């Protein structure tokens, strides 16, 4: 190495480069180990950071979590829907309902509800029906209610002497109260009965805290209306999200720890194997600090490369898992990078420093002789 005349001294970076290049197989295996640890950490942390959003999105399908009820003495104010939407936030789904008891052509009393089908389709995705009606005079017949109607295609209803004929748009099955009702478009309903909406169902995305905040805002805005949370939905969602969160947290810690310890053990073993290098350098006059920083720097370079590769691989794994499981993508998050970096550097530094401490007590001469 001293053959190059213009470079008489062995530079630190030169040694580092040569050490990495010469022992290529060893450097490569260390790189792979640190890449895997970085990839696993990245994937799990990315998934973990995205978990709440993903789960809350699943829970949106449960429907309304706030119900606003007006009574005859306190009707909904004009343009209430727009006001509620504004107060509840742009993400909230709202659907108005108006109810009246009419009689069918068979003389049975039946609850007829007027609503906005487009809103309900988004709010109550579990309603089972062939297709959502669009015609202004369509009538959606609850599965039970349909049995009390003589002609399902021409539904004749009477409300306080006023008759109306609607076109049946198929049956609706939910397993709940909806099965005993007939749903028609709100405009037609109001024109026919003169009744305005009395119930507004609101779905505020997010956990209990967001729902509580929306409730408070709505109650201040509309003090005369009755505004209630759907307790089991709000509580259930919070509990399950919280528990899944804790479960993920435990799993992430467990896996990260396992991988970290295994990688640490493997790396420190391979450093320990280099006791001959160590002895040689010491015999040539290297100080303890120099040797330590040499080993450390080498490890850090590999660790950084591992983080770069692992971040890409881990983000891809997180994307894949969320695509398979939640059918939506999880984008790479830069915010997990510092933690991954810290973990990898800690592993690498420990793996380099631990053997050096063990080797310090050894005599270079004895080592070189192979004792």
């Amino acid at each position, binding site marked *: 190495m001293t053959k190059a005349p213009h470079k008489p001294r062995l530079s630190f970076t030169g040694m580092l480069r040569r050490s990495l290049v010469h022992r290529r197989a060893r450097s490569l*295996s260390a790189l*792979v*180990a640190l890449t*895997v640890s970085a990839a*696993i950490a990245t*994937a*799990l942390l990315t998934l973990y950071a995205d978990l709440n959003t993903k*789960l809350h999105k*699943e829970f949106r*399908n*449960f429907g309304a979590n706030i119900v606003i009820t007006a009574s005859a003495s306190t009707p909904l104010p004009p343009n209430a829907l727009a006001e509620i939407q504004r107060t509840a936030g742009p993400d909230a789904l709202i659907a108005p309902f108006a*109810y009246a*008891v009419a009689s069918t052509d068979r003389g049975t*009393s*039946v*609850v007829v509800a007027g609503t906005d089908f487009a809103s309900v389709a988004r709010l109550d995705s*579990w*309603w*089972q029906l062939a297709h959502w009606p669009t015609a202004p005079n369509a009538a959606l017949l609850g599965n*039970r209610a349909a049995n*009390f109607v003589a002609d399902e295609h021409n539904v004749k209803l009477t409300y306080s002497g006023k008759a109306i004929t609607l076109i049946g748009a198929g049956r609706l*099955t*939910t*397993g*709940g*109260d909806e*099965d*005993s009702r007939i749903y028609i478009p709100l405009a037609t309903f109001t024109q026919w009965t003169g009744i305005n909406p009395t*119930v507004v169902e609101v779905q505020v995305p997010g956990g209990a805290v967001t729902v509580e905040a929306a409730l408070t805002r709505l109650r201040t805005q509309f003090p005369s209306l009755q505004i*209630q949370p*759907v*307790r*089991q*939905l709000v*509580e*259930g969602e919070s*509990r*399950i999200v919280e*528990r*899944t969160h*804790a*479960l993920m947290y435990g*799993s992430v810690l*467990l*896996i990260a*720890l*396992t*991988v970290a*310890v*295994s*990688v640490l*053990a*493997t790396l420190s*073993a*391979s450093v320990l194997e280099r006791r001959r290098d160590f002895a040689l350098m010491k015999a040539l006059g290297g100080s303890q600090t120099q040797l330590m920083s040499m080993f450390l720097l080498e490890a850090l370079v590999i660790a950084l490369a591992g983080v770069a590769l692992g971040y890409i691989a881990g983000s891809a*794994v997180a994307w894949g*898992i969320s695509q*398979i*499981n*939640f059918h939506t993508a999880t984008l790479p998050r830069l915010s997990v990078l510092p933690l991954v970096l810290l973990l990898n550097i800690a592993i690498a530094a420990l793996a380099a420093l631990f053997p050096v401490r063990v080797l310090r007590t050894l005599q270079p001469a004895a080592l070189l002789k192979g004792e």
Partner: protein
Amino acid sequence: MFFRLLWESFRRQRRRKALAGVAILLGTTAVTAMLALATTIGDRIHKELAVYGANIVITPKAANLDVKVGGVDIKPATGNAYLKASDLPKLKGIFWANNIINISPELSFKGEASSPALGTQFIPVNAHGFWFNHKFGEQVTGVSQLNPTWQLQGRWPTSGHLEVAIGQKLAQRLNVKVGDYFRFMQAWDRVSLITGIVSTGNELDNDVFVTLKSAQGLANLPDAVSRVEVSARTRPEDAFARKDPDALSPQQRDIWYCRPYANSIAYQIREAIPGADAQQVRQVEQNEGNVLKRISGLMWLISAAALFAAGFAVSAAMATAILERRAEIGLMRSLGASKGSIALLFYSETGLLAVLGGAFGYLLGSGLAAWLGARIFAGDGAISGSSILNPVLLPVVVVLALAVAIAGSTPSIRTALQMDPSTILRADA
């Protein structure tokens, strides 16, 4: 000779053995814990989802149409059809009876209530007869088990006409508290004791609750039940579940029948109870299935990631452990040992380590999973000792550890055996 070599190798090279052993131990611990959590997560989340209430509702088929808005009966039906309470034990005879977690029958009727605050005036109220902590076979079930979010102050009424629980809003209107007496049902000349005040968070807060038996007596409908709510453990619905069983071929129908879909359980209930119409509550059933699928899917995928990471860590540790012992291999070969016997020795060491590490890792991981599960899902009832150790996982984990360890050490053993013994010995001098 072989066993002495094996024994000495473990006795003398403790540090190296410890390294590989720790890697295997940690790997199997993580994998066992993740798999144990993933296999039980379905049941655990299902218990959490019980908050949402019944997923199957049984009503009398011939019942009149409900005229209900916001939970309030507008036109109480007269001469309605009812289910029979004496038919309910038949639910225990259906194929998926063990999957039924809670049953809550109900009989609603109209009543009147008055209190000193109202003077002699009576206000109309809706009243409901329920089971409260009712012993149904082995189970203790009823309306409070089915609605865990209800908050009860005091206790539920017992059978006997003089005890009632009332909703929170009704209590405010009547200005009464737990332990007070109030007049329930104008026709009575006696007062009833309020044993509890219930906050349900919905329209039932205006109602009166009595036991099913009292309700049957008060409404003069012996043995009658107007609806039954059932919470059952089900399998998330798939395309096959939506098929009409009566249109399937006999074999297909049997498969459909023997899967715990909400639809199959409802079908079996309709078969078991004459005149009953059982339907899945789609809001609960459909969405629960989805949430369950997502969360357990996530756990399985993360377990797969854990498996991969642990497998990698173990095989890397094994490779390093063998690589370090090239000198030994060189020495053995120069002393005349055949490649086969050296490989056998090394594989035996690896196998022994994997089995030991795997077994301990299994125990450690099972314990860890039980501890984590108990901490996270606290208050769901402790799991019994037998369910902490899942015996199916033991062979799975040990075989996995064995496969990964052998796969990890094979390349190192092969390269070491292919090298010239003298080169190895000189290089390591």
